[in-house]
């Protein structure tokens, strides 16, 4: 079986200095792949390129053998890619319900929100609250919930644990694991919180200065003391 997402020798640069060099990776359906690395390693750049927000200089991106290079950002959702950006991207002036509906607007039929509210009971109680009235954890759940309304095949998640209490982070990681097991969702998870990420991921790759330093099973990465010291800092 070929992978769902295949990235081959991707090079991305802002101007003269490339931020990503020859990055290759694959994500299978039903697999969670963690992208780890220090600040400035190029993790967010990788996600932004995959969702079409940044142009790549060279390399190949395919989803189910469909070439994604040159696809406009606003068309990506039709290809099955949902991107929850850094800082979550909840539209703070809209209500919880409106934010969720927004996730399904690209389809002709009315979005089904009941399943999402079942998944996040906390949101169900706050349907008519505005985005800026929510706590950080609720915003993260709303952002993930909104991405799920689009029924993606691949979820790109940028730093979901940022600014959240460990308990909430654990809830979110458990949710990802559950979604993977139940629906076969593929997740590319960018995290600073290495422990959390590796606790839920199947595979991990470490970026350093825009290059893939290593790719391995999550368990192997978690157990590799040298790697942890050098690149991941714990």
């Amino acid at each position, binding site marked *: 079986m070929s992978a769902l997402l295949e990235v081959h020798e991707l090079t991305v640069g802002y101007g003269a200095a490339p931020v990503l060099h020859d990055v290759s990776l694959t994500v299978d359906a039903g697999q969670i792949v963690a992208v780890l690395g220090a600040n400035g390693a190029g993790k967010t750049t990788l996600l932004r390129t995959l*969702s079409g*927000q940044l142009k790549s200089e060279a390399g190949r991106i395919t989803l189910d053998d469909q070439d994604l290079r040159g696809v406009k*950002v*606003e*068309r*990506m*959702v*039709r290809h099955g890619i*949902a*991107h929850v*950006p850094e800082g979550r*991207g*909840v*539209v*703070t*002036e*809209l209500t919880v319900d*409106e934010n969720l*509906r*927004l*996730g399904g*607007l*690209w389809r002709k039929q009315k979005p089904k929100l009941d399943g999402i509210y079942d998944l996040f009971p906390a949101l169900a109680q706050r349907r008519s609250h505005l985005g*800026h009235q929510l706590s950080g954890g609720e915003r993260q759940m709303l952002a993930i919930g*909104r991405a799920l309304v*689009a029924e993606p095949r691949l979820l790109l998640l940028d730093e979901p644990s940022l600014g959240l209490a460990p308990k909430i982070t654990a809830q979110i990681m458990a949710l990802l694991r559950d979604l993977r097991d139940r629906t076969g969702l593929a997740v590319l998870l960018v995290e600073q919180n290495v422990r959390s990420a590796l606790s839920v991921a199947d595979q991990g790759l470490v970026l350093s200065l825009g290059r893939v330093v290593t790719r391995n099973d999550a368990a192997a990465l978690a157990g590799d003391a040298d790697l942890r010291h050098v690149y991941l800092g714990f």
Partner: protein
Amino acid sequence: MDRFLYLTFDGLSRGAVYAAFALALVLIWRAARIVNFAQGAMAVATAYAGYSVTNATGSYWLGFIVAIVGGLVLGALVERVVMRFVDHSSPLNGVVVALGLVLIIQGVLGMIYGNEFRPAPAPFSRDAFQFGGVALLSRYDLFVFAAVGAVVVLLTLLFTRTPTGLRMRAAAFAPDVSRLLGVPVSGMLTLGWALAAAVGSLAGMLVVPTELGLHPNAMDLLFISAFTAAVLGGLDSPVGAVVGGLVVGLLLTYVSGYLGATVAPMAVLILLVVVLLGRPDGLFSRAKARTA
């Protein structure tokens, strides 16, 4: 007392037109963060188009429809061809370009139609009905209220009840996130301009029969009054635009009724200065600053 009642109804009728025009300014401000100083000139241009059709066909309503549709088209064109390419790093850029558009539009209209006032008849009688001996409302006033009321209701339904309205709001508040969710942000911006310009054209068509007639500069005072109304209500607030429009309309009629018509424009400018000094964000603005 009779005079006061008469002036109040007259003021509300004028205010309804200001409200519609202010709403057009608010729509564009919310979508693009530009105060469209060309709104008046654009409305005049479409009113000329409308009355040309009316004169050629004899049908006011055909001309009316042409003016509104012309507003949709002109608004979309201005956004696609001009405003899209304005560097938005400084808010002044959009203003200067809009003022340039005013000069171009007014110049072209002067070349085509001449710079004298042209008659612009109203579709309904402007003679007021008598209520207990006081002339309060004309058929035309009722038409103005109905038209503006319909626009307010339709826009409210559009923005709060339809997927397109949700897309438009999201695209304005958070363009980057909206793109990730599949919203065609640039299309929503064009639609916002088109709708706003159509509402401006409606206000223009409503005001022309009550003034001296059609002239390339016919909407200058309307623009100033409506701009004051929009600032009074808060540029971000559609409700504020409507309330602001009615307040400015009442103020203008009271001042011209009791103090003389020549004082009225000055009163509007004084109100504008007072609002800008005292409450620059308007009466209906939310306290929270825009962050996204």
